[in-house]
């Protein structure tokens, strides 16, 4: 339907104005800041080289043979390497198990609770659940005999702080993966399975040849959104460890914040923000493509 009147202008104006002032303009400004020195001179990519070579971003002296800190970039990579597979597979597994179970909605709600509450509570959980005196994880570890791990509070030790925050993130995020897969599974027509059964397929073959391929779109969605989450992670880590101890759980988003609002080094902070944004571009473009795809 085509209208050559001015309605679109008026309808769009409030949104466009707000987004331009509070989102688009700041993005451009930050980008510009990243090319300047503290005195305001244009220095191009100078700060980028400095930041990328800094041990706070990538610490190859310690990675991978010594314990963290490994540098914020590597920590975010660890988030992706550990958090993504875990939430993906747990979410899929839960969705499958709960598909045909009575009372599934209650259990799904329980798993989804993590997505509903503020992420800062994940920070509280990271310290609380892995505390040597009051943590339930430690009790379990003690029970299965892993005493060295059980008798430390994970968030106070560089070896375990990062992992504690990541695992807490798994608890918070798995609900998302689960409901996406649940919706996708529910959308698969029964006839497909019935037809396969008539042909004598086992559950296993049904899963491999029908379910999995049809879950590809859902998987893409989960991967894209989860990677974005892992790149931008802030609340959980800030509340749990502030990035410590000794920077052992630091992530890019928090490092940017510290550089900007604690060290007042706005140019390097802008560089970090831009780098972080560059990393989020591939998922962002995928989202945009699929979103516009449906006209």
């Amino acid at each position, binding site marked *: 339907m085509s209208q050559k009147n001015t309605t679109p202008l008026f309808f769009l104006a409030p949104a466009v104005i707000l987004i331009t002032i509070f989102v688009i303009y700041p993005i451009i400004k930050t980008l510009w800041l990243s090319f300047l020195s503290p005195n305001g001179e244009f220095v191009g990519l100078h700060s980028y080289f400095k930041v990328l070579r800094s041990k706070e971003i990538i610490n190859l002296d310690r990675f991978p043979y010594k314990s963290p800190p490994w540098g914020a970039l590597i920590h975010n990579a660890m988030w992706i390497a550990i958090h993504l597979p875990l939430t993906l597979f747990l979410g899929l597994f839960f969705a499958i198990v709960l598909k045909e179970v009575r009372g599934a909605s209650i259990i799904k709600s329980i798993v989804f609770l993590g997505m509903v509450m503020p992420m800062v509570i994940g920070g509280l959980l990271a310290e609380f659940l892995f505390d040597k005196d009051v943590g339930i994880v430690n009790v379990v570890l003690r029970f299965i005999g892993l005493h060295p791990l059980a008798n430390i509070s994970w968030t106070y030790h560089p070896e375990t702080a990062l992992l504690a925050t990541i695992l807490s993130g798994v608890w918070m995020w798995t609900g998302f993966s689960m409901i996406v897969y649940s919706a996708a599974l529910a959308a698969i027509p029964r006839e497909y399975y019935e037809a396969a059964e008539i042909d004598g397929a086992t559950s296993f073959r049904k899963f491999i040849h029908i379910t999995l391929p049809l879950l590809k779109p859902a998987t893409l969605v989960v991967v894209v959104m989860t990677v974005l989450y892992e790149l931008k992670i802030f609340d959980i880590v800030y509340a749990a460890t502030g990035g410590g101890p*000794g920077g052992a759980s630091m992530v890019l988003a928090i490092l940017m914040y510290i550089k900007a609002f604690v060290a007042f080094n706005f140019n390097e902070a802008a560089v970090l923000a831009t780098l972080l944004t560059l990393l989020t571009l591939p998922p962002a473009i995928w989202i945009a493509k699929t979103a516009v795809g449906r006209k």
Partner: protein
Amino acid sequence: MESFTPVLEAFTEKTGIEVEYRIYRAEDLATILPAQFESGMAPADVIFMWAWWIANNTDHILDVSDVINPDDFMPGTVDQVTVDGKIYGAPYTGKVKPGFWYRISFFEEHNLEVPTTWAEFETLLETISEIPGIEAPIASGDGVGWPLSDVTEHFILTFGGTELFQGLIDGSVSWTSDEVKAIFRDKLVPLLKAGYFSEPKDWTLILEDWWEGTHALYFMGSWITGMVDNASDLGVFSLPGAEAFVFGPDFMFIPKYTEYPAEAKELVKFLSGAEGQTIQVKQGGHIATNLGVKLDDYPEVDKRVAQLLEGATAVTDLDDTVGGEFQTTFWDQLKYLWVHPDEWEDVLANIEAKAP
């Protein structure tokens, strides 16, 4: 907070001037005050801030040389807020970080004595670690990080002296210099490696543990007197040889943009005066900067601390004074050091990287 209100009430009673009191975090004030000052505004008529911040922002602050006399206060205090001969801040009371606190009953029970030499200190630690029920002789508080930085600064002050300490603050001394390395290598790190310091644990929770006997010594500031059930059971000793202590008095200033300069000066005069400070110290946990406050006005335990201060030099807290990224890095690195004392050289290098 609650202990400050009686002082304000006394002021109102005396002068008839009403005072409204609000609490902000100093870090947040440091962020918003510059912007407000640029617009000629201020959120209050009298503001408490760090001394170094006051000294750096004198363009926006009222000169109070007419109400503050440096000789009324502990030597060195007013200097922290004096710029170009003019006084911009007024000292209030503060908290001292005197040393290791212990329960007198605990020491008596196990026949322990306060050490007077380093060797005696080491022996004391060794003896304490043998006592059943003790997990580690010294409790390590945790949180943002200041409990660890406080005890570290005590070591630096005692074995490095005030000049070295000041040098670390202004950047003329490096954290990787030989003198500093020696303090860590020979004094602090061996104690850490020997397990005399406990695992860091939330500083209020570990206070309970320490009181119950899981630990014997706890390095803490003088506010601890207000945190235990039985303050008269509290004893404190400093590292043998300590002649200087971190004394962090609170400072107040009057922004130029106040609408009530005369009243603000009245308040500042009262608060920093002997009368105001006495009311504060009587409630415990505070040490006065005003020399007019008498020893007997202190509650028993604080008196011992005040006595420790007599003749000693007061310095400002190291990480508070430098602030910014240094402070967060300092705290973060110390937390790391506590669980990985073997990597102390890397820790010092990392601290130096963010040092002035």
